[in-house]
C-alpha cells in the first residue's frame, strides 16, 4: 500500500467558497484546529462569480423592510417546501452577517447617506440586495479569503477529497489527492464540513464551472447521509445564447433588477401575460418557464432566446451598475448592451436539493458530518430567490463552523479510528482507470451524461421522458464503470473527470428519481403531465434519497410543523 501524507485536525472543511471560508473562520475562532481543502486555487470557487448581490433586510433603501418580510418572500419563493427554521434563521441573521463582512473590509456600494446600498431583485418585496456593481461575489470571497488567511487555519489548495472515512457511525476523516502530483492524502478529523457547492456540470448549458460535479452530495450519500429535494434544479432564466461557445454563461439578474425588459421577436413585453404584477422581477422559475414557452411557441429571438433590454437606462448608468455585463457582451458577443438588447435563454444554475441538515447546527444524519451552502438542502425549498444564496453561505457557513467545532470539542482526544481496509479500497478505486486498457473516454461519457440530463430531466419534464432518462443513465453508469485514461497521475484532468463522473452519476440518478416521483409542478420542477401544484399530497413532503444496501432508495418525509407566529407571517398581509 502506498504511504500517505497524513494531517490531523479537529475540523476539516471541504470547499473554500463562501460557505467553506465562513465555516473555517468560525471554527478557528472557536479554537478548533482547522484544515480547509479545495479543488481549485484559493479564491477561485464559484462564489467569486456571483454578481447581483447578497440579500439581507438591512432596510437601508426601503425602510419598511425587515426579517419577517424576507422570511415571507423566501417561503413563498420556495413554494413552502423550505425548512422553515432555516428560512427563519437566514432572514434574521443575514443583516448581521453582511455588516460583519463590512467590518472585515468589504466595500459595498453606498447610499447617499453613507450606508450599504441595496437593489431590487426577483421575488424580493423590497430593495434588499447589498452589492458591489455586478461583482458582489468577488468582494465577498476576497474579504473572507483575507480574513481566513489571518485566522490560523491550514489551507490545502488544489486538493480533492474523494472519500469520507468513518469509525463505526461517526466521521473520522477524509481521503483525497493533490491535483499537482496525484499523490494521496489522508486527513484525520473529528468533524467534516461539506461546502462543495452544486451539481451544474451534469448539464451542458450551465453557468457552472468544472468544479460543480456534486462531489459533496455524492460523498454525503455514500457516507450514509440523506439527500432531500434533488428534483429542484434552478434554471436561471437568463444565460447567454450566442455565440455557441459562451452558451450558458450567466447574465446576472441585476440586469432585470436595474430595470431590464424582456421582449419576444414580435416586440411584445411578454411577462405581462405570465406575471403582470411583478413582470421581469417575478421569481426565476416563472421567468425561465415564460422564456421557454415563448421560444417553444415560435416567438423566440434569432438564436432561440428572448430579448433582454437595458439600453433605455442610458450608457453611463449601465456601465456603472453593470460593468462586467457590459464587458462580457462586448468581448464575447460583440454586442453593446448600452445600445442593443441581449439574447437570453434559461441555463442550469443552482441546485436547491442537497444534504439534509439540522437548521441550527447544520449537522447531517451522520454524526460528525456537517453541510453548508449550495450542497445543503432545505433552505430554499422548490426555488431559490436571487441573492439568497450569498446570504445563505454567510449565515449557515458560520453556523456550520460553530456546530462542527462544538461537536469536535466534545470528543476530547482524537481516538477515532481509520480503517485500513477502507483506505485500500479508496486507493484501488482511484487507480482503476489507469489499469483499464480497454474502456471509455471519460470526456465522451461526460458529454453523453450532459445530453441525457438536458433532454430528459431539463426545464420541462414528463413521466415518459424521465423514465427514458433513468434507463439511459443506467446504461451510462455501466459504461462509466470502465473508464480509461492516459498519462500520469500528475495534474491529469482526464483522471479527475473519472472521479467527478462518479459523483455526477450519483447526483443525476437521485435527481431523476426525485423528478419521477414528484407528480406535480412546483417551483423549479415542471411536470407537463401534472401542470398544477398538488398541495394536498406533494405540498406536504420533501423527497428523500438514501443509500440502502448499495441501492438508491427514494421516499418522502413530512415537512415539520411551522410555529403559529411564523405561519402568521407567511399568510400575512404582504403583497
Amino acid at each position, binding site marked *: 500500500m502506498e504511504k500517505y501524507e497524513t494531517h490531523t485536525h479537529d475540523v476539516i472543511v471541504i470547499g473554500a467558497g463562501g460557505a467553506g471560508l465562513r465555516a473555517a473562520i468560525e471554527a478557528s475562532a472557536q479554537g478548533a484546529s482547522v484544515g480547509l481543502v479545495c479543488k481549485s486555487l484559493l479564491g477561485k470557487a464559484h462564489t467569486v462569480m456571483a454578481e447581483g448581490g447578497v440579500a439581507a433586510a438591512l432596510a437601508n433603501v426601503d425602510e419598511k423592510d425587515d426579517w419577517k418580510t424576507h422570511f415571507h418572500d423566501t417561503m413563498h419563493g420556495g413554494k413552502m417546501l423550505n425548512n422553515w427554521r432555516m428560512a427563519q434563521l437566514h432572514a434574521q441573521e443575514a443583516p448581521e452577517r453582511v455588516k460583519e463582512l463590512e467590518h472585515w473590509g468589504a466595500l459595498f456600494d453606498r447610499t447617499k447617506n453613507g450606508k450599504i*446600498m441595496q437593489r431590487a431583485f426577483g421575488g424580493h418585496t423590497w430593495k434588499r440586495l447589498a452589492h458591489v456593481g455586478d461583482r458582489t461575489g468577488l468582494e465577498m470571497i476576497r474579504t473572507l479569503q483575507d480574513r481566513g488567511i489571518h485566522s490560523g487555519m491550514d489551507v490545502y489548495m488544489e486538493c480533492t477529497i474523494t472519500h469520507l472515512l468513518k469509525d463505526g457511525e461517526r466521521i473520522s476523516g477524509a481521503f483525497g489527492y493533490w491535483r499537482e502530483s496525484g499523490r494521496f492524502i489522508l486527513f484525520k478529523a473529528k468533524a467534516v464540513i461539506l461546502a462543495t457547492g452544486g451539481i451544474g456540470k451534469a448539464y451542458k448549458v450551465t453557468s457552472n464551472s468544472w468544479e460543480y460535479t456534486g462531489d459533496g452530495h455524492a460523498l454525503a450519500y455514500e457516507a450514509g447521509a440523506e439527500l432531500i429535494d434533488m428534483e429542484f434544479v434552478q434554471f436561471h432564466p437568463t444565460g447567454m445564447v450566442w455565440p455557441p461557445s459562451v452558451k450558458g454563461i450567466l447574465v446576472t439578474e441585476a440586469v432585470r433588477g436595474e430595470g431590464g425588459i424582456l421582449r419576444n421577436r414580435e416586440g411584445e413585453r411578454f411577462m405581462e401575460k405570465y406575471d403582470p404584477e411583478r413582470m421581469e422581477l417575478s421569481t426565476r422559475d416563472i421567468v425561465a418557464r415564460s422564456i421557454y414557452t415563448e421560444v417553444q411557441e415560435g416567438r423566440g429571438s434569432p438564436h432561440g432566446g428572448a430579448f433582454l433590454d437595458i439600453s433605455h437606462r442610458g450608457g453611463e448608468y449601465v456601465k456603472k451598475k453593470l460593468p462586467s455585463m457590459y464587458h462580457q457582451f462586448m468581448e464575447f*458577443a460583440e454586442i453593446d448592451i448600452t445600445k442593443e438588447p441581449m439574447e437570453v435563454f434559461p441555463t442550469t444554475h443552482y441546485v436547491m436539493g442537497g444534504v439534509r441538515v439540522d437548521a441550527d447546527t447544520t449537522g447531517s444524519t451522520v454524526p460528525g458530518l456537517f453541510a453548508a451552502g449550495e450542497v445543503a438542502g432545505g433552505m430554499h425549498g422548490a426555488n431559490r430567490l436571487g441573492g439568497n444564496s450569498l446570504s445563505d453561505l454567510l449565515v449557515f457557513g458560520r453556523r456550520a463552523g460553530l456546530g462542527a467545532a462544538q461537536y469536535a470539542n466534545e470528543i476530547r482526544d482524537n481516538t477515532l479510528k481509520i480503517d485500513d481496509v477502507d483506505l485500500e479500497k479508496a486507493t484501488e478505486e482511484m487507480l482503476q482507470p489507469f489499469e483499464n486498457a480497454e474502456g471509455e473516454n471519460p470526456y465522451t461519457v461526460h458529454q453523453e451524461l450532459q445530453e441525457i440530463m438536458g433532454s430528459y430531466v431539463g426545464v420541462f419534464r414528463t413521466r415518459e421522458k424521465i423514465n427514458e432518462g433513468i434507463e439511459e443513465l443506467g446504461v451510462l453508469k455501466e459504461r462509466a464503470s470502465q473508464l480509461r485514461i492516459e498519462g500520469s497521475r500528475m495534474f491529469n484532468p482526464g483522471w479527475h473527470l473519472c472521479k467527478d463522473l462518479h459523483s455526477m452519476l450519483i447526483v443525476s440518478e437521485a435527481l431523476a428519481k426525485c423528478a419521477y416521483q414528484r407528480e406535480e409542478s412546483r417551483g423549479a420542477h415542471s411536470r407537463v403531465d401534472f401542470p398544477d401544484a398538488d398541495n394536498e399530497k406533494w405540498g406536504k413532503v420533501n423527497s428523500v434519497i438514501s443509500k440502502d444496501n448499495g441501492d438508491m432508495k427514494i421516499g418522502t418525509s413530512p415537512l415539520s410543523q411551522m410555529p403559529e407566529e411564523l405561519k402568521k407571517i407567511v399568510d400575512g398581509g404582504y403583497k
Partner: protein
Amino acid sequence: MSVAKVRVYRGDKNGGEEMEYEVPLEEGMVVLDAIHFIQANYDGDLAVRWNCKAAKCGSCSAEVNGMPALTCKTRMDSLPLDKPVTVYPVKTFPIIKDLVTDVSWNYEVRKKIPPFTPAKDTEWIMYQEDVERSQEFRKCIECFLCQNVCHILRNHDEKNEFFGPRMLIKIAELEMHPLDTEDRKEFLREQAGVGYCNITKCCTEVCPEHIHITDNAIIPLKERVADTYFDPLLWIFSKFKAAD
C-alpha cells in the same frame, strides 16, 4: 468548417515540447475552448486551469502567441489563423505541467500584508466617492498576469525583494480604504519593495480588469513612502538626530 492549428506547450519541470493539434473553429470560440477540444479529443491529460470561463476568476492565464492573456477571453478570431496559434504557460512562475504553473509564491507573500485594521469605535459610514478608489483595486481577479509581465519579477527574479504589482494594489486598496488605520509605509518600502518599480507600466497594459495599476496605485504609494522617508526637511532632521 475551417480548422485552426494550435500549438500547445506540453511538458513539466524536466522539459517539454510544443505539440500541434487541429481544432475545428466554431463561431465566437475562445482559446480555452480549443484547449478543451484537445483534451476531449486528443490528449485527456492536457493540464490547464480554468473555472468561470467568463473572465471573472483569473484561473486561465497563459501566453497566447507570446502575449500574456486570459485564454477564456481571447477569441480565436482575434488571432491570425493563417499561422498556428501558440499557447504557452506564463513564464514568471515555475511550470508544473503543460499550461499550469506554480503560483504559490503569490499566496505566501500575500499572507505577509498587514490586514485591514479599522478603529474600534467606527460608525461604518462611508461615501461612494470615498470607496471608489479602493473599489477599483478590489476588481482584481488574481490572474497574476501583471506579476507575469513585470520585468523585476520576470527577468530579474527579485521575488525576495519585490512583491510585484498585484500585491502593491492589494496594499494600496488597504491604505486607501476610508476606515483603515494601519500604517503600511515602512512595510511597503522595506518588505514589499515599492522602490524597485520603475514605472514602465507593463503591468497596467496587461490587466484584464483595466485597473490603472501604475498610475492609481503604485505612483501614489511611492509618493506616500517618499513623503515619509525622503522629505528633505525630515531627512536633515533625522541626520541631526543621528549625529547627536
